[in-house]
């Protein structure tokens, strides 16, 4: 029950940060939108299809990416790196009888839901204006599998960012590291172009990194462009990454506290 109350408390916080949330939403909106503009022009030039993608599937891909970017991009690493570690607020967490990860998850969740809601709102507006051009899977079995893939994607994103945030204990310029992974996420998550349009070697790399499991597969799953035969492999990949990241997080957390409490703030 106390978790619910904590959740509500953090939701309040989010309301107080409504402008900030809106900005995060705008950020998630801009890049896919620009790319969509580009493809619109490109498809008009080259004719209607490109390796299985046409303007409408490409459009729905990028629009769904807006939601994916908004909902699945976890930002807790910023709070951990700057507020908890640099400013020293981490000490207060060490006293609480709470899992650090769980507490941070409840801080992050309202933001994700709010962002996701904004994203869905935009998507619906686009659907209203452009109609059936934007297509998603609507049958229950595929939908429920897609939801599972999305949830797993969020968890992978969360633990990845937790590890990233904690890395601030070992590096003093956190933003350089943050940017590196942002770019990796953009390329290998499918934000530039759909992953199956990448050259072979790069494509194989993309499918072995966690980013595709955070963004690309959730989007293609809900879009319906994901082949049913591939789903078990993808779920396996997601579970693998989730387990690996969770284990790494636990290890880093333990080492991290040692370092933090040894040095003092």
């Amino acid at each position: 029950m106390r978790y619910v109350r904590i959740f509500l408390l953090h939701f309040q916080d989010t309301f107080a940060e409504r402008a900030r949330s809106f900005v995060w939403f705008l950020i998630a909106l801009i890049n896919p939108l620009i790319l969509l503009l580009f493809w619109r022009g490109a498809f008009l030039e080259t004719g209607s299809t490109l390796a299985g993608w046409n303007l409408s599937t490409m459009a729905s891909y990028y629009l769904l990416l807006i939601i994916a970017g908004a909902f699945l991009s976890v930002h807790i690493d910023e709070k951990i790196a700057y507020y908890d570690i640099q400013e020293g607020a981490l000490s207060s967490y060490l006293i609480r009888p709470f899992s650090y990860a769980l507490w941070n998850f409840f801080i992050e969740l309202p933001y994700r839901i709010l962002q996701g809601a904004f994203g869905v709102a935009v998507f619906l507006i686009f659907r209203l204006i452009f109609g059936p051009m934007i297509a998603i899977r609507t049958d229950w079995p595929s939908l429920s599998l897609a939801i599972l893939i999305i949830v797993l994607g969020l968890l992978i994103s969360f633990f990845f960012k937790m590890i990233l945030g904690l890395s601030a204990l070992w590096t003093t310029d956190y933003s350089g590291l943050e940017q590196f992974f942002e770019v990796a996420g953009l390329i290998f998550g499918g934000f530039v172009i759909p992953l199956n349009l990448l050259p072979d070697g790069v494509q194989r790399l993309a499918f072995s990194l966690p980013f595709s499991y955070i963004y690309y597969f959730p989007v293609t799953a809900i879009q319906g462009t994901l082949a049913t035969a591939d789903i078990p492999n993808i779920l396996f990949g997601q579970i693998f990454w989730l387990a690996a990241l969770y284990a790494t997080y636990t290890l880093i957390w333990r080492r991290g506290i040692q370092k933090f409490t040894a040095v003092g703030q």
Partner: protein
Amino acid sequence: MVISVSHLSKHYQTFQKEPGLVGSLKSLFARKYQTVKAVNDVSFDIGEGELVGFIGPNGAGKTTTLKCLSGLLYPTNGKVSVLGFTPYERKTAFLKQIALVMGQKNQLWWDLPAQETFLLNKEIYEIPDGEYQKTLSDLVELLDVEDLLKVQVRKLSLGERMKMELIAALIHSPKVLFLDEPTIGLDVVMQKKMRDFIEVYNRLNKSTILLTSHYMEDVRQLAKRVIIIDHGKILYDGKLDSLVKKFAKYKVLSVVLETYVAPDKLAEVGELTEYNFPKAVIRVSRNASNVAAAELLQKFPVDDLNIEEPDIEDIIRDVFTQAAK
């Protein structure tokens, strides 16, 4: 008059938010604003070379007044003049002659030796080479930090860092110095060193210093003149000695007794504020202090007797409680 304040007021708005989720939702649509009168019709003048203590409890309006004097805040009402300038216009010539030092805020570059920050300030304040060298060496000597000039700021202890902050703040030899809670957060030894420094600096440079504090020790040592402020209003402005004489209607008799005397017997002489045999502390009205002392010596087996002024803290506390009524 170097500093001239006339009917200064500073009000600002805050809004209320009700607790709970419903309150947050409400605050999305309508907010209730409240006007806080941080400074309320304050007037005083300060002459060149004076060292004035600005005392009051937290939230009294001290920092707000300092910020108005240094140009950081735009007054709601009234006139302020410092060195002939209107502070909030923040003219270059004005800013070159003042300094505001606020406790924990720092301006030193963290990863570099303090010396680098001094050189930057030299350019910013357009300090000529010769003057810069002289001021720097004077300050370094006064604060005894010769060996630390080339050490990275992040490697310095808190006390050493504070000294460097002071040098950075004073390198341009300001004529007017505003110190906001200069001894806060420092240990007892550092506090004393800070006070000594301020005293010496004021004497050597004839700079006008206005310092705020809620520590009595700062006041006792430094300020010959005090301005007491609470809830944005000035309660007293004048010499410290006069404050004592004006507001302290009583004197304190501290007695050491040879043999035990019942409390109610002692209370016949005056107000018994403390009794820890063999020590007793009795309050009597100022005029009657000699008579009371004589009475004590006559009636009771007194080993030692002292007639003292009341503690400044107690006086000031009384001033505040009186004002609250």
